[in-house]
């Protein structure tokens, strides 16, 4: 049973850009699929915050399995497929993107069928970066064994207090060492100008996406976290392309117009919250509906900002790619993570923070080392920790989540920040 909440579309203004979003995502999937089937271009799989610009410069069509994992979760196919991977020795306690995706492959299922794909595109090469977690490598190695395809990547640093030059040097050396393998499969040499172009487009995409997210600093917020998780698709799968830049120009303009006109994503915004951690993909719509029902806008998140890469610089491609990959929130230690959250709490003027403690994603769960308690104590910010998971709905209790969220909003009502209004039966 899902969380009961009204349909979030009721009373909410649809973004006009959504139609364009659907078009370019469909074209992306069709393009990778056509390349894989027709052998018209080399196909690579890449981790979502991996060094995709190298692949773009070498003419690869790129597929992002984490995006596929999210689609498996959102379509709730994941819950049918994970068991196949568990039976193969992939624990229910590891990343449920991995287990739902591998299980889907073994079951011959994919939500990409709605885009006309019969299966995930077969990779000629798989390129990972462990800047987010180790699971991505293990995930790719399953397919590497399955298809006899090379699995290459960057073994990155994690839990960094500061990103020092020696960290960047080490990643640059790894990126340079990857190039011959990427060239061999692509059948062409890496062209410096093409790499600069890809990095320039990634940076533009990043800047525009950040503008979109920052628009929700306005009151009322024109974009919620739940909508942003959908609209971030091109920032993940089309980073380094002109299509992504064009899309975010359009979206940023629309959001700016909304903010300027005082139009919010919700009909009424009593409270503003920040979301830390992964989405609960199988309950995205239900949670969006519940927060809308409570007139509470989730205005910003760590997750959607994970595809903002301020360091990218086309004048120094590899070095800036290395730095960008290390500066990511997920690759940092508790202290810089806390500073980041404090800055976001202030910038977006939120009334509270919801931490999603995702059972199978410890690297993207920030409630496990006392962070919520420290924020509550040091900033006086109300915090809520929700137990759940990105894809494994067995780890998520609808009733507990609803009670926790409603109780949290009641707490905000009681703190004198808004007129108390009971939740109607």
């Amino acid at each position: 049973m899902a969380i009961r909440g009204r349909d979030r579309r009721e009373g909410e203004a649809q973004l006009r850009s959504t139609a364009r979003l659907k078009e370019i995502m469909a074209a992306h999937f069709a393009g990778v699929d056509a390349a894989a089937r027709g052998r018209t271009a080399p196909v690579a799989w890449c981790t979502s915050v991996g060094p995709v610009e190298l692949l773009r410069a070498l003419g690869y069509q790129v597929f992002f399995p984490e995006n596929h994992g999210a689609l498996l979760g959102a379509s709730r196919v994941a819950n049918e497929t994970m068991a196949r991977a568990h039976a193969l020795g992939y624990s229910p306690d590891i990343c449920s993107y991995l287990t739902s995706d591998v299980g889907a492959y073994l079951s011959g299922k994919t939500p990409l069928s709605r885009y006309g794909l019969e299966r995930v595109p077969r990779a000629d090469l798989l390129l990972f970066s462990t800047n987010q977690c180790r699971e991505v490598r293990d995930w790719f190695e399953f397919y590497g064994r399955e298809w006899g395809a090379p699995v290459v990547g960057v073994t990155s640093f994690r839990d960094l207090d500061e990103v020092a030059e020696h960290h960047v040097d080490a990643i640059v050396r790894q990126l340079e060492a990857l190039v011959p393998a990427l060239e061999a499969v692509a059948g062409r040499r890496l062209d410096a100008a093409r790499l600069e172009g890809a990095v320039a487009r990634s940076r533009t995409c990043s800047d525009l996406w950040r503008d979109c997210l920052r628009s929700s600093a306005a009151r009322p917020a024109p974009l919620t976290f739940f909508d942003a998780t959908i609209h971030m698709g091109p920032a993940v799968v089309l980073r380094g392309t002109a299509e992504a830049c064009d899309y975010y120009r359009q979206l940023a303009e629309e959001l700016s117009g909304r903010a300027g006109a005082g139009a919010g994503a919700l009909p009424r915004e009593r409270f503003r919250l920040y979301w830390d951690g992964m989405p609960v993909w199988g309950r995205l719509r239900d949670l969006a509906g519940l927060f809308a029902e409570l007139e509470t806008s989730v205005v910003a998140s760590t997750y959607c900002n994970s595809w903002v890469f301020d360091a990218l610089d086309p004048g120094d491609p590899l070095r800036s790619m290395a730095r960008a990959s290390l500066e990511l929130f997920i690759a940092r230690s508790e202290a810089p993570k806390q500073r980041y959250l404090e800055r976001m709490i202030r910038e977006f003027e939120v009334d509270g923070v919801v931490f999603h403690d995702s059972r199978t994603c410890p690297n993207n769960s920030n409630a496990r080392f006392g962070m919520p308690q420290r924020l509550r104590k040091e900033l006086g910010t109300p915090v809520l920790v929700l137990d759940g998971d990105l894809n494994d709905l067995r780890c998520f209790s609808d009733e507990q989540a609803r009670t926790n969220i409603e109780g949290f909003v009641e707490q905000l009502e009681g703190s004198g920040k808004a007129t108390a209004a009971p939740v109607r039966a």
Partner: protein
Amino acid sequence: MAPSYFAGVDCGSWNTKAALIDADGRLVATAVVRTGADVQAAAARAVGELLERARVERSALAALWSTGFGRHALTLADGSRTEIDSHARGALQFFRGPLTVVDIGGQDAKIIVVDGEGRRVAHKMNRKCAAGTGSFLEEMALRLDVRIGDLPALAAGSTEEIALGSFCTVFTGTEVLALIRQGKRPADLARAAYRSVVKRVLEMERVEGQVVATGGVVAHHPLVVQLLSEAIGARVAVPDHPQEIGALGVAVAARAAASG
């Protein structure tokens, strides 16, 4: 005469509780019935018993609000609040803040922190597991071959301290079976089960200041309160009607809303 009473119904997993307060907020009556499989029918029975006990007509109710897991399903309710809010409000009818309210119910356990002004500042619910709840005790009673209602008397005969896990109900159940095979006494295992509940609850959140225990488990298994007091090294207060405290709290919320 204008309607002047406020009723609260707490739709719990095991029992449905009801409380009635008058226009001045004074507690008039309470009632507890088994929830069973029909939440609506249980609520109707609880309200019927409540009004009969108070000798108050249904028409004298200014409002009836619901709380608990079935709060949204209740068609007879005019409004609702979460059990988190209701238990805090209920406890505040008996004690002044700052308080830490420890509510142990049939399906969940909660820790609710209330500041000196009576405002809720934090809460924590148990994870998706029965450990630390009444359901855990029911499972342990099953393993020890006694009815849940007989568990307190059994535990009273304990002479040896045994440590049981508090992570997972199934794991602990298996642990109990192994200990029975080793010849451990049911009385000692019963007491160990209560200690396991306390351990689990204290893992959820730091418990500070004046601690108030509420909920059905607290009402029917007073050993939990004693063990909780021992564990934190301070007296744990229990309000009158600890099982109906959520129903009382939501009745108080209904009255507060009516008075603007």
